[in-house]
């Protein structure tokens, strides 16, 4: 990598580090809390460590990693001004998330398309989706992690055995999500699955039949459970606007303390303008994923990276439209801006998958260059 190519990336990483330090320093100076000073030092240091040492060790994609870590630091900063203890807890939640990212990267680097990987990942994914149905007392949300595994299965089947078999785990996941009442994830998965079938198969009949089945499933669900289609019952838009464009230190009483979504907190503390700019960060993240998908050598890796880019992007879009009351969906969390540990781990696992595919692409390019040099 020459200096001209690396310079913008380093500048971007430096800006992200500086901004993440400022997000904790400003409330720390105002309140004089030691924990916030500690976070102001540790969070950028951890980001720097990940973006340099870990990225070099595991050949991770630096841009995707920096964006994901910056979004995680925003999630920590959302708690910082009002509740430093919760901010520390959120920071601790990011550490297992980082481990999940590394697992995803290593898994994707070594995984290739096969019937065994398709069947085993489909089984595990469907098991995670049906955990709530099998054991009603089980309250850990594993749906996003299950969808990440199902992506592997669907990509494997779409790339090797045709889309006929890929429809089975895809629609099974959709039915399980609808049965479990997770209407938001079902909508996101349905749309991602249809787009992947459109990209990887492209046959009009298959796309039309998949589209019709998806629409029929949602239509049937809306007839059976019409009360599930309701707008988000979270902080109202007027409350967010009352905090002003630059935010406020005092949170309104209607903000639930145990809410999983951190976007209302972020927009109340740092203002709607900053929160809006944060939402726009999901666009370069998904475009980076599309770039990795188009650079992939195999259909398997291309479809996985496209799916991994589409899921968070569509989730961010749905969350944005849901906050403003345009979508009749229950509470949708922005990716990485959640206080739920399993969801955070699943989202970082997907970014790890993206980084693993990027590392594989780079290894392929290096091998090509080596072969070209030998041919000379």
């Amino acid at each position: 990598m020459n200096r001209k190519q690396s310079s913008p990336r380093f500048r971007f990483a430096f800006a992200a580090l500086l901004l993440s330090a400022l997000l904790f320093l400003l409330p720390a100076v105002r309140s004089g809390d030691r924990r916030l000073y500690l976070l102001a030092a540790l969070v950028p240091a951890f980001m720097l460590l990940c973006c340099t040492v870990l990225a070099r060790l595991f050949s991770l994609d630096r841009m995707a990693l920096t964006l994901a870590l910056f979004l995680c630091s925003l999630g920590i900063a959302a708690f910082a001004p009002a509740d430093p203890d919760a901010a520390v807890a959120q920071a601790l939640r990011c550490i297992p998330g980082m481990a999940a990212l590394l697992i995803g990267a290593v898994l994707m680097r070594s995984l290739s398309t096969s019937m065994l990987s398709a069947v085993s990942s489909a089984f595990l994914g469907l098991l995670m989706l049906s955990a709530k149905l099998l054991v009603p007392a089980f309250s850990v949300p594993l749906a996003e992690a299950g969808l990440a595994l199902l992506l592997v299965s669907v990509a494997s089947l779409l790339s090797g055995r045709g889309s006929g078999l890929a429809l089975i785990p895809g629609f099974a996941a959709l039915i399980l999500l609808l049965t479990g009442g997770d209407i938001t994830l079902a909508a996101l998965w349905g749309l991602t699955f249809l787009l992947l079938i459109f990209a990887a198969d492209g046959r009009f009949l298959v796309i039309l039949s998949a589209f019709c089945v998806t629409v029929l499933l949602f239509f049937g669900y809306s007839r059976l459970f019409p009360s599930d289609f309701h707008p988000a019952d979270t902080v109202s838009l007027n409350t967010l606007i009352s905090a002003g464009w630059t935010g406020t230190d005092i949170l309104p009483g209607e903000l639930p303390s145990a809410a999983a979504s951190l976007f209302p907190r972020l927009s109340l503390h740092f203002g709607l303008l900053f929160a809006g700019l944060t939402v726009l960060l999901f666009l370069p993240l998904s475009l980076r994923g599309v770039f990795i998908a188009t650079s992939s050598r195999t259909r398997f890796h291309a479809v996985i990276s496209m799916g991994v880019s589409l899921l968070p992007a569509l989730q961010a879009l749905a969350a944005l439209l849901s906050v403003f009351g345009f979508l009749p969906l229950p509470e949708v969390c922005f990716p990485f801006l959640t206080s739920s540990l399993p969801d955070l781990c699943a989202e970082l696992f997907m970014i790890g998958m993206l980084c693993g595919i990027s590392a594989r692409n780079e290894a392929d390019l290096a091998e090509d260059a080596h072969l070209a040099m030998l041919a000379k």
Partner: protein
Amino acid sequence: MKQLRSRFRLISLLLVCAFLLAAALCTGTALKAAGISLTSLPSLPPLGISSPTPDPSVSPSVSPGGEPTPSPVESDPTGSLPPGTDNTPDPEYNVFGL
């Protein structure tokens, strides 16, 4: 594989359009909820242009009898008020809140 890549690019283009559309829609809604209408923006006076001095074309205040209102200094019979001490600024022109 080439077809797959072109479809990926099409999907990414759709995604960008959806993001921009959603951003425009949400900005419009937020501005509307904040009471700022885009159509009323051109009619708002630009900040910092409004002059603290009165418009010279406007005639001084005239009493109902037709005679000009005397200034506070002129109306002070004792003449104890130094000039400029009680000329409280007109609230209409008091842009600095003094």
